[in-house]
């Protein structure tokens, strides 16, 4: 019996080993096919890949891109929507959904999806450019109504679709958000915006996986060789090169710049205090205090606009009846001097209902206050 099992085990291992490099290669092959306009072949390639590896998100994403390019808009929308739901903080599915909705002339939906992408990635150039175009298209429609002009049916809005996706497979963890190892799009690479030079700080190469993406591509003046060397190397074709553990947080020595006047330790304390205030406001049904914990560019998700979400929360938070909200074991992950995420176990109890979830708040520092820009829950 023992002898029988070994060949199976070896075969399985071999298969795993074989698929790894193969699928990395076939992803980029598929991308090339798409660039060449050979969508059918690209789809075949990707389908084969997915048969062997049905959970490969890069492949799923690329599949949707191919469908979109072929004009299978509804299928592509469905696929990107599924990816957006599974990876709510990833800008790429959101961006591409916007592209497709804009193609259909639904500029309002396009706007909401792009604003969602921007809320988690304010420096994401593609979404930024697309959003400008969508605003212009929306404005053109509104002007034609206001001034009673004939509106040309073809507004010629051509948004940029993104062709690769690097969403972390480990979506439940805080570091999925801290994971800034986003790849450059495979086809014409768009340079990431460069943050202004910061106070040069020593740092260890091991931290690069958690560095805010904006400081990566253009080496800062005081960059060490280790930094520039790791930057290009960490453009994965398939998934992140590092596998951060859920409990990992940025070490205290990480160079989060001091220019804004808050040391990492101070930032952490401020963030935890903000989360505590938020939970307290919620539990004591202080609707204004609760809503004030959210930034103006908070993106609710679920297709709700901000005013709709606010109205819903007003109702639900303000509903009479005692509630208890507890934040357990919060883990703060600093991404930039003004950006962080916090993950914790959230328990909610009211007379009729109680639950526990793993909650992640993406926080942004505006005018010295840490405010919530995204809020997501996962089952425990």
């Amino acid at each position: 019996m023992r002898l029988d099992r070994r060949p199976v085990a070896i075969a399985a291992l071999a298969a795993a080993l074989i698929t790894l490099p193969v699928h990395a290669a076939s992803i980029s092959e598929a991308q090339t096919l798409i660039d060449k306009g050979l969508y059918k072949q690209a789809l075949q390639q990707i389908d084969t890949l997915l048969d062997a590896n049905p959970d490969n998100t890069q492949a799923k994403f690329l599949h949707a891109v191919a469908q979109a390019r072929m004009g299978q808009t509804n299928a592509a929308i469905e696929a990107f929507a599924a990816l957006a739901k599974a990876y709510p903080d990833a800008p790429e599915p959101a961006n591409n959904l916007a592209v497709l909705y804009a193609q259909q002339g639904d500029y309002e939906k396009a706007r909401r999806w792009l604003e969602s992408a921007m809320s988690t990635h304010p420096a994401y150039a593609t979404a930024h450019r697309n959003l400008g175009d969508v605003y212009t298209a929306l404005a053109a429609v509104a002007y034609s109504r206001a001034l009673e002009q004939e509106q040309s049916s073809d507004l010629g809005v051509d948004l940029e679709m993104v062709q690769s996706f690097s969403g972390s497979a480990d979506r439940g963890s805080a570091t999925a958000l801290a994971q800034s190892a986003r790849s450059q799009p495979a086809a014409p690479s768009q340079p990431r915006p460069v943050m202004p030079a910061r106070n040069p700080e020593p740092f260890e190469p091991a931290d690069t996986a958690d560095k805010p993406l904006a400081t990566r591509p253009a080496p800062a003046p005081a960059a060490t060789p280790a930094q520039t060397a790791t930057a290009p190397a960490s453009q994965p074709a398939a998934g992140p090169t590092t596998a951060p553990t859920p409990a990992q947080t940025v070490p205290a020595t990480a160079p989060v710049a001091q220019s804004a006047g808050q040391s990492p330790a101070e930032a952490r304390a401020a963030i935890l205090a903000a989360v505590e205030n938020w939970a307290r406001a919620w539990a004591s049904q202080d609707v204004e205090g609760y809503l004030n914990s959210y930034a103006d560019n908070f993106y609710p998700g679920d297709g709700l606009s901000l005013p709709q979400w606010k109205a819903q929360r007003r109702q639900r938070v303000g509903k009479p009846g005692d509630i208890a909200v507890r934040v357990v074991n919060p883990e703060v992950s600093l991404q930039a001097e003004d950006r962080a995420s916090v993950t914790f176990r959230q328990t909610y109890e009211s007379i009729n209902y109680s639950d526990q979830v793993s909650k992640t708040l993406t926080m942004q520092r505006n005018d010295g206050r840490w405010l919530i820009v995204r809020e997501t829950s996962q089952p425990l």
Partner: protein
Amino acid sequence: MRGRLCALLSGLSLSMAAAASAETRDAFHSDPEVRLLDALSQFNSGDYEDALSDLSLLIEDQPDFRLANIVYADLLLAKAGRPLPQSDGPFSDKRSELLEEARVRWSHRLQSPAQDATPSAVLTLADRYEYVIVVDLVRNRLYLMRNDGGQPEIVADFYASIGVQGIGKQLEGDAKTPIGVYHVTEYKPDEELPELYGNGAFPVNYPNSLDRVFGRTGYGIWVHGVPRSTYNRAPRASQGCVVVSNDDLETLRDYIRPGITPVVFSNDLEWLDPAEAAERRNRLVKVIAQWRQDRESADPSRLARHYAEDFVSSNGQERREYLADIADSPAAGNMKVRLEDISIFGYPGYREMALISFTQRVYSTTSKFQDSESRRQQFWRKDDSGWQVIHEAESPDR
């Protein structure tokens, strides 16, 4: 971003609006206007995201609201960091119209009558008038007011368009809105109306008796709605009619009684505090009380002093003839005169003029004549000799 929004929004001088909204506390306002003004407020406070999302929702609900569309469009372009479009020939007119509309709507929000203020045009209302409409022609605002124990109280107010040539109709075809106190003569429903008039119309009795004295001509002055391709019209857009949105006309319909409801068109509307209103009212109450007393008098000169030299009656009689008829009638000196249902209007458009309407009951104190009752309007003017009647007529309303 603020700086980029030239043209439309800087024209509103929004920066001066540091004060919170001063709208009449309990007055009803139509929803699209409230939402638009709220969005402008948000913009003014720097809440650009809220302004944009609220405007986008408003436009979904009311895509024909042209002003909301242009504010939204300008904000979007400003946010995208792109220049506002150049105004071409025909469209620059439309842009200016929209800017003017924004200005009047915003001005109203900044400065509205207090809840207990009295319009100078309506000092006292008889019970028979449950509601009155007062239009501020200068500020493009139509007020629906309820008769609260004789005093008018604002129930709702709406943005209103007036004649394209402005205020002060004199002649047929001059495309101006008249100034005066009128009443609604009838109601014309949607089915009877060309699309231009929207979902309903309330004709008023221009020219009224006083207008005819001044030789004013023209007809067809209505309060009506809008064609369904738009939510509302520019501040000066009609041939003289007062135009409101179809929603607002629908609201008004529940309160207006054809044949009865007074409609005031004013170019000099003031909102008086209770003390000032009482003072003006009481002065005129004294005036009409004195007139009543002198009307009963056997001495014709007592009545005569109330009538101006240039008085003319509704059938064209001048002062001397008119007073002679009264003095010569069998009733003279043998009667009691009772006045009821007194309404006092500060007549718009003149420095000191009032319209006092009442039911006049004349009771014979001998058996020489029949008691009589009539509804009358008297137009009084104040000059150096005090208040005097310049015109008198039967009241045209039911």
